[in-house]
């Protein structure tokens, strides 16, 4: 089954890099934030595949969930500065 795990890691790595590039280069700020959240979510699947379920749960709940919402709260408060 090791080959399957290796394939999963490769696939998730591709998705991670793609999402990270969108997060850095994306035109609109909400999508950049959402992509950062996606990087965290996919990373948490990768943590699970790397046999670290505790870290996976923390990353999903805190790194992806709450941090993304904090970003959106601040972004909605500073709507004018979005495009600077």
């Amino acid at each position, binding site marked *: 089954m090791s080959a399957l795990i290796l394939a999963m890691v490769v696939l998730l790595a591709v998705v991670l890099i793609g999402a990270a590039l969108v997060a850095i280069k994306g035109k609109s700020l909400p999508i950049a934030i959402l992509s950062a959240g996606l990087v965290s979510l996919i990373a948490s699947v990768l943590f699970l595949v790397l046999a670290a*379920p*505790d870290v*996976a*749960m*923390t990353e999903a*709940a*805190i790194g992806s*969930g*709450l941090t993304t*919402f*904090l970003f959106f*709260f*601040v972004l*909605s*408060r*500073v*709507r*004018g500065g979005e495009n600077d």
Partner: protein
Amino acid sequence: MIKRAAALLLLTIIGGIFFTLLTGYSADENLNLTAQYYAENTAKDIGAANIVTAIIVTYRGLDTLGEVTVLFLAAAIVGLVLARSRGAGAAQTVKAPVGELLTTGSHSLLPLILLLGIYIFVNGHLTPGGGFQGGAVVASAMLLLLLANPVKRFNHRLISIIESFSGFSYVVIGVLGLLLAGGFLDNRILPIGEFGQLFSAGAIPLIYSLIGLKVGAEFSSILSNLSEAEEL
């Protein structure tokens, strides 16, 4: 332009360091000494099935106390920085109304999400998860409340009461460990019990539940402070 070149140069240097690290890395075949100690002794000394939990709550419990303190300070500073910016409500722009579907759905999901959060921190010693994750899920439930009802304000007093109560009890349990068992935050003030049961691993479920409540209250306070800031 020169800035971009400097950035690229810096990144090349860092990338080179990373590359040497990566090519020089070879995975261990066996656990190192520390990890081996934890793997051998956790089950019979601590009684927790989840070794990561055992490390966080007992072996390195003092660090966790520090971590919770850092989090408390972060929440307090966010509150302090934004204290002057709390909106009066009059100047707010008109918000889009919440659809009926979202309101009903969130009201019916809320108890279940809270239940999931409590399950995660009560079972911290048996399954993945624990106080931090459970606290985050509880805070997510509060967030759902906020999303479904944007004008609602949290009860700040209740949050701070829960926070200080659980923080105080956490320290009291730590001191009890010093008095009744081997040291600060020792979990053996309660019987270790049968391995794999819910009531086992001494005081770990209790400590992790308190951490969960405290972390949940801190996250909720950060969220509510940011969401109540005035729109600029």
